[in-house]
């Protein structure tokens, strides 16, 4: 069976996106055709491919998925009170659920389709730049097929105080469906914003293949939280790319809680001196959940810093894959890069494959990496018990504390509290542990 057959049989509606946005430019059309060509030739990757070795997509490849239709959902559980909100259901804009509100001058927050259909020229100009389609077949699938998504543009010096909340709700039906939201964030020099990218689901066998692009001009400062809490029958295969100018800062925290299978690729490029990216994350999985994080940070210029701290808490028979790569180009001197992956196993059946890698082609750099997989520190559990705290509470408290280092970075309180609630629900005596923070 050729891979092309696999591609064709698994998604019904391939190339549906081509020409779907009226007035989209020839550049975008060419990008879509390229995406289509790549996905048709590569198809759904098999575990023979090195970066898919531990994540098996056989079940996906053999299940025909139809393009998800328009839908609506009750978004009240996920809403942030004081925010600029865009909502997409099955990758399609929902005007009725969105509430962008009043925006500071020089700020555009709109559906991508509106931006591409002639509203904003720059969207078309940068779209797809830095997205490596060949190595990311699902990003290729997205590129050919996205119908809509979020478009954020911050002009020079613009500051958005309230969080920008992008909700992507996947609404399943009685048959497998798929959707491909596309988000583009373009921050001009010295602009600032906090962006929450939030994936949720209402149930059903679904596949979401989002692509999110960050383009940060010199001095831009973006805080980003990516919370993936899709329903447990779903698959979520995402790509996040970022390209950063001089002295820009991207502080991104990825939280993976939902989905039966979640794969997140992050390609971050530090392209000019002084740029900083922190890409931290927490995955919290149980039962037979599978989560896979693949991060590539490329230091392409001198004096850039990157920070990656990924923590995992695994229970049941869940599995986590972490593949972190730091690439330092020749000439990227004074690079300072830290990468750490720490996993906490709460059960005997959970499994982690952690593989941090460094590729350093410059000689004056400071790069550290490391990974740990382990259980709770028994000495610490005993210390708590010896002061009268029961075993279950002691274990929950220590697990909560392990996660807190990531969760406490989240500045948007509703999202932080949501994440805390996920932790509390997973832990015995979780409510008690939560009070500690």
């Amino acid at each position: 069976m050729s891979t092309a057959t696999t591609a064709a049989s698994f998604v019904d509606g391939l190339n549906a996106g081509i020409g779907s946005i009226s007035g989209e430019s020839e550049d975008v059309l060419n990008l879509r055709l390229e995406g289509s060509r790549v996905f048709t030739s590569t198809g759904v990757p098999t575990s023979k491919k090195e970066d898919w070795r531990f994540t098996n997509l056989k079940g996906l490849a053999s299940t025909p998925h139809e393009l998800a239709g328009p839908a609506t959902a009750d978004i009240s559980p996920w809403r942030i009170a004081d925010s600029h909100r865009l909502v997409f259901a099955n990758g399609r804009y929902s005007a009725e659920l969105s509430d962008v509100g009043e925006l500071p001058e020089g700020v555009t927050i709109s559906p991508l389709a509106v931006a591409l259909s002639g509203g904003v020229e720059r969207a078309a100009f940068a779209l797809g730049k830095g997205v490596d389609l060949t190595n990311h077949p699902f990003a290729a699938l997205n590129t050919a097929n996205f119908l809509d998504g979020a478009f954020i543009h911050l002009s020079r010096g613009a500051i958005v105080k309230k969080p920008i909340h992008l909700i992507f709700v996947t609404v399943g039906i009685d048959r497998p469906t798929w959707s491909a939201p596309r988000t583009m964030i373009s921050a001009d020099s010295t602009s600032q914003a906090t962006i929450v990218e939030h994936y949720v689901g209402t149930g059903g066998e679904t596949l979401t293949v989002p692509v999110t692009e960050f383009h940060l001009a010199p001095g831009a400062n973006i805080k980003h939280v990516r919370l993936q809490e899709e329903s447990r029958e779903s698959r979520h295969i995402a790509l996040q790319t970022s390209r950063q100018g001089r002295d820009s800062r991207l502080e991104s925290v990825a939280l993976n809680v939902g989905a039966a299978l979640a794969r997140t690729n992050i390609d971050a490029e530090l392209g000019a001196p002084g740029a900083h990216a922190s890409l931290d994350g927490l995955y919290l999985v149980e039962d037979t959940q599978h989560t896979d994080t693949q991060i590539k940070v490329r230091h392409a210029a001198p004096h850039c810093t990157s920070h990656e701290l990924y923590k995992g808490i695994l229970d049941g028979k869940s599995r986590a894959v972490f593949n972190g790569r730091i690439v330092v180009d020749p000439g990227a001197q004074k690079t300072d890069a830290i990468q750490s992956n720490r996993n906490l196993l709460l059960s005997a059946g959970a499994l982690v494959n952690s593989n941090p890698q460094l590729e350093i082609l410059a000689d004056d750099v400071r790069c550290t990496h490391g990974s740990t997989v382990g259980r709770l520190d028994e000495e610490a559990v005993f210390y708590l018990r010896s002061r009268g705290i029961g075993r279950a509470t002691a274990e929950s408290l220590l697990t909560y504390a392990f996660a807190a280092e990531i969760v406490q970075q989240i500045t948007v309180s509703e999202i932080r509290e949501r994440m805390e609630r996920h932790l509390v629900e997973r832990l015995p005596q979780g409510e008690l542990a939560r009070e500690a923070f």
Partner: protein
Amino acid sequence: MLKLNNLHVSVDGTEILKGIDLSINPGEVHAIMGPNGSGKSTLASVLAGREEYEITDGEISYSGTDLTELDAETRAREGIFLAFQYPVEIPGVSNTYFLRSALNAIRDHRGETPLDAMDFLSLVKEKAKIVKLDEKLLKRPVNEGFSGGEKKRNEIFHMAVLEPKLAILDETDSGLDIDALRIVAEGVNALRSDDRSFVLITHYQRLLNYIVPDFVHVLMDGKIVRSGGRELALQLEDQGYDWLEKEPVAAAV
């Protein structure tokens, strides 16, 4: 209060304690001294309920109950406190929260209502003064980034808040300079009372200049080879432990 009868303890099949007899009454302070490897810390761990220690023979009775039937947390709730030789760092859990959880678990066990945050705060502030603990250390994660002396003082501070009936101090004096040692000793002395007993495990006599014990026992090779009053500690300081090996084993009090 505490009675050990012919206590034998093994770790990984190796016998460490080889028949300990010891009786501690309310209000008494007992010092247990001995060279490295004599089994002092094993004794402390067994009393606190560390599970990797196997009691192969003998009995431990605490306030009339069989202590070996109780898990570590229940022992703590029944009033046993161990000050660790190496206090553990607990990243992410604040010292205050940790103590409040512990105190409320103990209060719950006694059928008392939990202390609310305000009452608890005034309690810890008062107790922190006893060991001159910097209030900043109350908010910090337990023992994280504390100096050696601060960790030991924090143990005594925990003891002051939890008000145990039997406190076991496992080499609390080790690694302390003289000022820190004095503060720790003053903290312990402030907590001495007619119904609270102490077991001081130490390698050096020095601590006993500040906390005057009622009894001193010498532990060597898993057995108490000599018991006496405070003067025994002074004799050990002068003569070391070697002379005890040459003399016949004395009966424990």
